[in-house]
């Protein structure tokens, strides 16, 4: 029996996830700037450099760091699987995603192959560190089987996504030839969105939504089947480039539809259990989670009615960012409070009173983050019909990033202030 997740010395230090969380507002800001600057191009074509740059800023710089950071923190609790050398894993992953994300986005925007490829190499190095840590942690995990398999298969999907990404970067600049190379790009997107992002958010969501809101559990069959169904469908996608183009296209349409249906079952179940929650209050976390579920439904209809790929991308990426920021609104104040409480008990500083969660992240600030993100999504979507609105969408996304950065820095400053009260000299004894 693995007891590592319960041992006090194996609990991940709060600095590990925070190192990764700090990347998110910076990259949301870069994505917002690109949208505000070249939003018309983003909405005109998924192949526009600005669209590719925005996508990679969001996926590598905003989504991936928070997903990785949350996993470092939750894995010991949910799966009984602490990451080895968690601070080092967090720092190297953050460095790889931070530097790699900037170079990849910049490489697309400035059409600089060297910048793009070096960014790809750095981002992959960072993600490989995370994957090696995940492999070692998850191989000894003892948590709930369904969640464990969802996380394992999401990690597999991440590995496939980055391998395909590197291959495509080489194809883009003529260093490698592939038959039906557009099909390989679709494959990269499918493994990244439906596999890594979709599977991890669904797997973790099915565990934490009932937990946070005292709601009925997700359907047991869905929890068991979803991770494997997604991976089997994605493996079928891998076979498409070997088929005649017309057949490959027909099968691609069918496979994506089925992938959507599988994920919609999760999102529909999520909305249902949230509706039947016992906790009465609606908070920013719940709004953002529900926005993400609705966005996936809207993306499905956009797919069915053959809307532009850009519109589909805004809905799916916006939905992913919405779920992740929603989770952050819960995780950030709690982790900060828990760290302070553990220091307080360990040091015997019971006379020091701790700030409450609402002091660490005021409700108005969390609501501001939610509203600006939701408005940015709506404005950017409307940009498909009135291109100037993508500029507004970009500005709102920058506003969201600024509020999120303020929330993170504010919590860090309060934490340092309390830690200073624990120290006899009044100096903080731990980093932020």
């Amino acid at each position, binding site marked *: *029996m*693995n*007891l590592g*997740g*319960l*041992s*006090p010395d194996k609990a991940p230090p709060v600095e590990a996830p925070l190192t990764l969380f700090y990347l998110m507002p910076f990259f949301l800001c870069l994505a917002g700037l690109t949208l505000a600057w070249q939003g018309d191009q983003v909405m005109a074509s998924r192949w526009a450099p600005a669209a590719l740059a925005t996508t990679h800023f969001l996926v590598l710089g905003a989504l991936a760091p928070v997903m990785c950071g949350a996993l470092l923190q939750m894995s010991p*609790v*949910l*799966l*009984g699987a602490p990451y080895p050398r968690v601070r080092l894993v967090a720092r190297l992953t953050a460095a790889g995603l931070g530097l790699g994300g900037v170079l990849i986005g910049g490489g697309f925007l400035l059409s600089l192959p060297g910048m793009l490829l070096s960014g790809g190499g750095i981002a992959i190095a960072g993600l490989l560190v995370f994957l090696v840590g995940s492999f070692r942690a998850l191989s000894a995990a*003892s*948590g*709930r089987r369904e969640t464990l398999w969802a996380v394992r298969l999401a990690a597999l999907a991440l590995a496939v996504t980055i391998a395909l990404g590197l291959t495509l970067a080489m194809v883009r600049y003529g260093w490698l030839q592939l038959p039906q190379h557009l099909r390989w790009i679709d494959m990269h997107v499918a493994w990244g969105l439906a596999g890594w992002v979709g599977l991890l958010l669904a797997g973790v969501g099915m565990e934490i939504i009932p*937990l*946070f809101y*005292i709601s009925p559990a997700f359907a047991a069959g869905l929890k068991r089947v979803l991770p494997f169904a997604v991976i089997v469908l994605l493996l079928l996608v891998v076979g498409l480039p070997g088929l005649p183009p017309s057949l490959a296209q027909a099968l691609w349409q069918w496979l994506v539809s089925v992938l959507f249906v599988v994920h919609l079952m999760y999102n529909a179940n999520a909305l249902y259990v949230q509706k039947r929650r*016992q*906790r*009465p*209050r609606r908070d920013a976390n719940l709004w953002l989670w529900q926005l993400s579920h609705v966005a996936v439904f809207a993306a499905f209809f956009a797919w069915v009615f053959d809307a532009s790929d850009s519109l589909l991308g805004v809905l799916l990426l916006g939905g992913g960012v919405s779920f992740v920021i929603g989770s952050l609104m*819960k995780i950030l104040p*709690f982790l900060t*409070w*828990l760290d302070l*409480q553990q220091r307080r*008990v360990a040091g015997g500083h019971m006379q020091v009173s701790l700030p*409450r*969660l*609402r*002091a660490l992240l005021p409700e108005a600030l969390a609501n501001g983050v939610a509203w600006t993100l939701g408005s940015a999504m709506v404005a950017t979507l409307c940009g498909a019909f009135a291109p100037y609105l993508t500029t507004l969408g970009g500005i709102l996304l920058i506003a969201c990033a600024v509020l999120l950065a303020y929330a993170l820095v504010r919590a860090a400053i309060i934490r340092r202030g309390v830690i200073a009260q624990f120290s006899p000299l009044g100096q903080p004894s731990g980093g932020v």
Partner: protein
Amino acid sequence: MSFQETLTAQHRACDAEFAKIEQAAHRKDWAAAISTMQAFVDDTEAHFHYEEQTLFPALEAVAPMAAGPTAVMRSEHAQMRELFGELQAAIGRRDARALVDAAETLFLIMQQHNVKEENVLYPMADRTVAHGLTVRLEGRKGVA
């Protein structure tokens, strides 16, 4: 019934009582909030008492490596007890904002604590602790 089934059911029962406190406060029914809070504290304390006085010592006796984790669990019980006091004080003052704040903190502590017990400690207890203890556990009616 196993430790896993019985004690997890107690967690869910305490969760449901906790939700009733929030529901009562949400509709400003302070009398209901006070009575539900008392029931919640009584049942949670009974659950803690069983774990601290019976289950954890039994686990530590058969598996010394469990001593670290059970110490963490006891420490988290102490954190929750401190928050019970804050929640009761907020209800006593009819202070809805303070109640929401203390409730959110307590609830998140409770949930991460429960997940750890349900995923690790209770399965371990089912594998290692004597069957006689399980039988006595089933005899308890007043906890959940």
